[in-house]
């Protein structure tokens, strides 16, 4: 911020200095011309110059007007906060053209205007290549746009011929002023450029350090995330333990106590023992209901709200949207109205397989086919990923196996290449599950009640 202000002040100072320099030339030339005419040395002047000068008022009129336009452009450009009212290149082009015209109108006595324009433009242009192009072009104009260098300029009257008119003392004084002003302009330019590039270096360093901070924070965030996952797991486990302790523990303790009491009463008072056993049964049934309640609390949210069909479709759509893998879902098993534990298992298997296909197999195409043969539901899931070189039971496969075992289902999996009926790249999982109907389940429950 401090740097910006310094740059702006330097730029203003350069404008003022250049205005003074231009005024210097614009006064010297006409004033000397009129003095020469008053002292009848015009013929001698032309003999010495051996070329006719421009009209005396041409320089002041042209130079002051052009400088005013240049200053207006710079000033307005600085003020318009939008900055995109005119494209940067058009501003550059206009300023460079004015610069050249201005040097021409000053009879090529002074080319420091190019430095002024350079400081003015170098701040607008952010592209480094364009910036170096500008620096090259304007430095060239600065170096070449001099009376001594440019062949075109030889048609103009050199300033020295004007100064020749004055006595040596005054001549020295005038050229002293000129060279002081011109050097001051060059010095200011160098100062400006040094400040500009120093400021840029500072900013680059600041951006670098911000970048470092950001990546540190990212790393931290990852750590915290992992920690949080672990914490959640522990909390869940604790909840589980508590739940088991509260429900199963309580019920089982009751059952043990009740059955022991019944055993003791069995010979003394079979009627009482029977009564006790009934209580124990009731208590076991209550316990089962409690367990069911607990498991229900762990069900996937989607299954809680919708039926399996809808829940699966919703999951697939969401998965496609988040991973950009294409999923072909063929449901040929008719109505998917199963017991809750079966639904949960199906839901979890499909979810796990899709996740594995994308995460480990890097697949972008997954086909899920569901079919039913004599109350056995078969889920066939195949992807086009890279498969798995050595199939380990990680990746949740054991989990699936366990879930299916509980429901007396079976699981086969492997690389599609190894499947004789397939042979493509990718991985396949086939899960078979004998399904019960809801009514069946209810019957099953009631039979358990009896």
């Amino acid at each position, binding site marked *: 911020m401090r740097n910006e202000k310094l740059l702006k002040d330097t730029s203003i100072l350069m404008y003022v200095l250049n205005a003074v320099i231009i005024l210097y030339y614009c006064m010297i030339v006409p004033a000397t*011309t*009129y003095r*020469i*005419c008053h002292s*009848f040395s*015009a*013929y001698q*002047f*032309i*003999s010495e*110059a*051996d*070329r*006719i*000068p*421009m*009209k*005396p*008022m*041409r320089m002041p009129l042209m130079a002051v007007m052009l400088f005013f336009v240049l200053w207006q452009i710079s000033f*307005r450009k600085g003020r*318009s906060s*939008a900055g995109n009212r005119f494209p940067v290149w058009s501003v550059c082009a206009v300023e460079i053209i004015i610069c050249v015209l201005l040097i021409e109108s000053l009879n090529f006595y002074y080319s420091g205007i190019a430095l002024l324009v350079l400081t003015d433009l170098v701040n607008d242009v952010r592209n480094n290549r364009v910036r170096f192009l500008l620096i090259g072009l304007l430095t060239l104009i600065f170096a070449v746009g001099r009376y001594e260098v440019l062949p075109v300029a030889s*048609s103009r009257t050199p300033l020295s011929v004007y100064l020749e008119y004055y006595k040596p003392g005054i001549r020295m004084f005038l050229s002293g002023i000129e060279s002081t002003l011109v050097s001051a302009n060059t010095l200011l330019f160098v100062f400006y450029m040094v400040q500009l590039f120093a400021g840029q270096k500072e900013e680059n360093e600041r951006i670098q350090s911000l970048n470092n901070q950001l990546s540190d924070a990212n790393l931290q965030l990852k750590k915290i995330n992992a920690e949080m996952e672990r914490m959640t797991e522990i909390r869940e486990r604790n909840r589980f333990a508590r739940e088991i302790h509260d429900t199963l523990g309580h019920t089982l303790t009751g059952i043990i106590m009740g059955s022991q009491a019944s055993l003791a009463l069995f010979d003394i008072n079979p009627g009482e023992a029977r009564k006790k056993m009934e209580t124990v049964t009731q208590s076991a049934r209550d316990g089962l209901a409690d367990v069911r309640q607990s498991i229900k609390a762990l069900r996937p949210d989607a299954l809680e709200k919708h039926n399996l069909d809808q829940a699966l479709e919703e999951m697939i759509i969401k998965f496609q949207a988040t991973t950009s893998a294409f999923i072909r879902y063929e449901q040929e098993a008719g109505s998917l109205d199963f017991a809750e534990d079966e639904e949960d298992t199906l839901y979890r298997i499909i979810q796990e397989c899709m996740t594995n296909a994308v995460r480990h197999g890097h697949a972008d195409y997954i086909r899920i086919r569901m079919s039913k043969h004599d109350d056995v539901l078969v889920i066939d899931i195949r992807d086009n990923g890279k498969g798995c070189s050595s199939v380990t039971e990680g990746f949740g496969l054991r989990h699936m196996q366990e879930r299916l075992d509980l429901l007396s289902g079976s699981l086969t999996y492997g690389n599609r290449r190894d499947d004789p009926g397939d042979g493509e790249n990718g991985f396949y999982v086939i899960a078979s599950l004998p399904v019960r109907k809801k009514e069946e389940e209810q019957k099953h429950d009631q039979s358990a009640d009896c």
Partner: protein
Amino acid sequence: MSRNENKISLLVVVTVLIVMVVGAWRISGLYNQVTLTIGVYSGSYWDTPNGDCYQILDTAISEFEEQHPNVKVNYVSGIGADDYSEWLAEQILLGKEPDLYFVLPEDFTLLASSGALAKLDDMLFEKKEFHREDFYSPCLLAGRYNGVQYALPHESVPSIMFVNKTLLAENGIEFPGSDWTWDDFYRICQKVTDPENHRYGVYNYTWTSALYSNGASLFSDDGKKCFLSDDKVQQAVQFVQKLKALNEGYTVTSKDFDLGYVAFRPFLYSEYRAYQPYPWRVKRYTHFEWDAVTMPAGPKGDNISELHTMLVGLSSRSRHTDLALDFAVLLCSDPDIQQNIYRYSHGISPLKSVTGNKDNELLLRHDIPGGGAFGNELISEIMSTAAVSPRFSKYDQAMNMAEAAVNESQNSSVSIGGLMYSAEREITEFLNKK
């Protein structure tokens, strides 16, 4: 922001309007009134009384304005011929120089080399009224610089030799014919010279005057080479030295000639014309009878005079160059207007048809008692063979160097040839230096 934009667009509209109005005014100005300005001096440049440049100019102006009703021609009067160069330089410096102006012979090189004068060749090519062959070629040559025509000749004056007829008669010498040579010249001078009675042969006949009549030139046309050691040049130098030796160390002055003690003096033809007729005749040289003759011919040359030509040039910054050239062509190549030179000035028209005209001869002879030595045939001859001094920007300085070398050679004992060679090399080097 929108207020600013309004302001800017207003500014743009106003600027465009102003430009359009000015442009329209300028363009319409071409079809309405155009003012053409002319730079001219008063009196006579040729240092003669009663010369009147304005008379000739006024006639041309009224004719030109008749031909171009939409043009008004102006000039500032009252600038003396002596102040004219400085006045013109001031106008150029201030950027207010006239559209066309008279160019004095000595100013031509500077005005052409500095770019003050417009190049005329292309424009002249399109002017049907202008014919190169109407002019004596030395006159046109006087307006050329670096092979480009920068000015048109308005009036020329050759150098001729004034002769003290009384002094010649006293010595029983016949008046020399117009085809006389250096030998005749030397013989007469030898006869006349009598230092004891303060009688001398010639005043102010320099080796540079002798050059032209020996067919020599000191510099190449492009001003890049000096021929100081050339035989013809050396002959001129030695001839003048020989003449000088007759005076036995005495330096002849103009007063000696005026008092009738000297037989010859080179002069401008204009003075001959101005002072031969009455009443001016009595103003000058009352002590003796005088007339004029051509310059004596050198062994390798002819009776050639140096020609001085008043020129008319166009400003290179004029906005009406075409009209200005029309006027210049009218002024310089219209026989009726050129005719006026014989009435109002003392020079010679650069136009062959005017100078060779018998009527003009009568006009001339009418002024001069006894008819004088110069008829139009002789004048035509002088004009068509006259030499024009070289025109390049370093001429004055190079000439000074050559003069210095010649002076040194006359006062030194070193061999003249070697001295001239080294001077020639030095001058050529100077001419080629940037």
